């Protein structure tokens, strides 16, 4: 039974292999069950009004890549990501903004002081639509083509990820 003595060593090998794989995983990545699924159906009012801001039909009607960004004026990381949304706008991408659980006045102030990167803005005051989107926190950005969710970015888009990650993903989906 010489093999018996090797059992602790073999168990350890398995554990260290798992740890090695684990090192290359990012515990911050939260996968979405909605990737490659059609967007949920919704219709949201404009900020501080009754008329429709935009709805799922607007997104489906787009034939190029568009982004849906959940934000709020009370969310500090949203200020961090704001300049990169402006950059996306400059490069000609349409961003649909959803103001999450926020007051109309605060949202408008946010837009006027920070700049408006959005193509259209709608308000999700009770947060119901965000739940349908499998949302996990503001800010959160979805990349959509032909009404299908292609990618979901959790948390703010920041400098380190903008060119390497977000732009390269958008461009690869665009093709």
């Amino acid at each position, binding site marked *: 039974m010489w093999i018996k003595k090797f059992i602790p*060593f073999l168990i350890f090998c398995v554990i260290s292999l798992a740890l090695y794989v684990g090192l290359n995983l990012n515990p911050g990545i939260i996968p979405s069950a909605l990737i490659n699924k059609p967007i949920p159906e919704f219709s949201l009012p404009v900020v501080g009004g009754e008329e429709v801001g935009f709805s799922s039909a607007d997104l489906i009607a787009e034939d190029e890549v568009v982004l849906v960004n959940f934000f709020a004026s009370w969310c500090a990381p949203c200020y961090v990501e704001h300049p990169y949304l402006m950059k996306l706008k400059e490069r000609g991408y349409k961003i649909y903004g959803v103001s999450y659980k926020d007051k109309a006045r605060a949202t408008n102030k946010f837009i006027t002081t920070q700049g408006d990167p959005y193509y259209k803005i709608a308000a999700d005051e009770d947060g119901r639509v965000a739940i349908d989107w499998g949302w996990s926190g503001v800010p959160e950005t979805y990349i959509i083509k032909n009404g299908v969710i292609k990618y979901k970015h959790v948390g703010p888009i920041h400098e380190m990820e903008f060119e390497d990650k977000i732009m390269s993903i958008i461009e690869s989906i665009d093709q």
Partner: protein
Amino acid sequence: MIVEIGHYALILACLLSFIQGTFPLYGALNNRGRLMALSSPAAYGQLFFVTIAFASLMYAFVVSDFSVANVARNSHTLKPMLYKVSAVWGNHEGSILFWALILALYGAMVAFFGRNLPKTLHVRVLAIQALVGLGFYLFLLLTSNPFERVYPFPMEGNGLNPLLQDPGLAFHPPLLYMGYVGLSVTFSFAVGALIEGRVDAAWARWVRPWTLLAWCFLTAGITLGSWWAYYELGWGGWWFWDPVENASFMPWLVATALLHSAIVVEKRDTLKSWTILLAIIAFSFSLLGTFIVRSGVLTSVHAFATDPERGVFILMFLFIVIGGSLLLFALRADKLTPGGLFAPISRESMLVINNLLLSVAALVVLFGTLYPLLRDALTGDKITVGPPFFNIAFGLLMIPLILVMGLGPSTNWKRADLKGLSSRLSFVFAASVVVALALFYITSGNDIMAAVWLGLGIWLLFSTIFEWAERIKLFKAGSLKRMGRQPRASVGMTLGHLGLALAVIGMAGTSYWNTEYQGIMSHGDTVSISGYDLTLKDTDGIIGPNYSAVRATFDVSKDGISLAPLSPEARVYLTPPMPTTEAAILSTLRGDLFVVIGEANSEEYDKWAVRLYYKPLQLWLWLGVAVMVLGGLISLSDRRFRMGSPKGARKA
């Protein structure tokens, strides 16, 4: 300049550890006295140079030298002096340097106290100790240099996480590290013995005090962390099965098993290869704990350095140290001849059951900790394993363990008489069942598990006292004299078991009978909880050295008699900005009254979010652990185990 001296000293220590880990090892193989003679001076030299390195880093923190990157990231001029000093080990680089310092300290202790060991074993143990140290020095110098400068340097530092600015936490890491690293000595002894190919009672007598020392530190360190979580995090929990808590708990479980199996090796010359394996695994868990904390491989509140590059380095180091020693074990363990035989009912088999249960418990904790990672690596699913799993799986293993713990000390070595044992202890068992049921009835409890755990604690308490009373023949002539003449090791055992009994009773009380109140209070409001009446009297704004806070004052009374007022605080630290709570706790033997106040509600004046907890028997948990550590220390002072005593001075 002083910082550069520290850096240089660290490099010298690294070189010395290389010398200590190689030449004497070769000398021991070929019996070259001169090469072997290198090892002790090298161990002292290593300690000297690491101490200089550590002292210069501490100097940089004390004078707030922000040109050192590490100081700039983790300190601040406004911080009280205690936290400037504790910030030295409150960050990644500094804590690894601290590891290396303690490792060198233990190395020097082995060099000094081990002068009477067989020369080749002594040299080999020191060499292994030095090779482990070499890994840490290289890790420091190559990936996490604490002496790195920044230019241009900032005028002010970032500050230390406010949650860590607490006296309890200033001393939690040093104690824990003394425990973690203390296991390196038993590890070195185990690997040294494997190379040597000989394990005997003398070897076990050598290993036991080191295990005991590490165990005492680990126990105290873990509990200090738990105590900190209890009063600082502000929701009255004391154990969360967080990956990093588990990382410190696993070595403790294995060290506890090792403590017991070393007794069997010493007294009965058997279970040798098992004991060697436990010694290797105990230290492996220490290293694994460090890896988990430092690499960010698991998400945890403790992970303050998430850097995959460092992770790869530690993993490689881990693989060499643990994998190498386990491989050595596989190849050499056959050389260890098995010793005395024992009957199924005997002290030995009781200790074997203890060892099995503790090892399986450690495996369960390991599995629960790593399962999310394994699952993620294999399938990509994100899951967490929480307290329900651990409480059930771990709890089920502890029930038989505590039952056996009550029996073990009353059982004879080699072969015990089952009938005699059961007739002596069945009375004790019946008494504990009756007491547990009576208490259960009085408290009108509704959870049967409360009675089970309480009963287990009482059984352990009674059986330990019973065994002690039998040993000294209490109430018979000369019992006091016999009490005085008990070997300190057995007094230590009694206290250790007694302490666990108290802790188990405390755990049962605080887990099953706690009550809480959460609500909004205004000035003059009164809330009653578990017989206490609390009135919110006053709220004041106060300014501390590096925080501002709201301090609330509660008048406390019980049965109409007023007690000292309680003043919880809600603090907001300035650097980095962060709110924390300072709970106010009224501790008595019956239970803890725990008051937490939330942040002020800016919109509605005079509405305060208040949480009150009543935690019965919470103090018993802390007292129990204190008694356990006391038992360990008394046992450590036993003359027979004194580290300097020559081998075989007294036959066991």
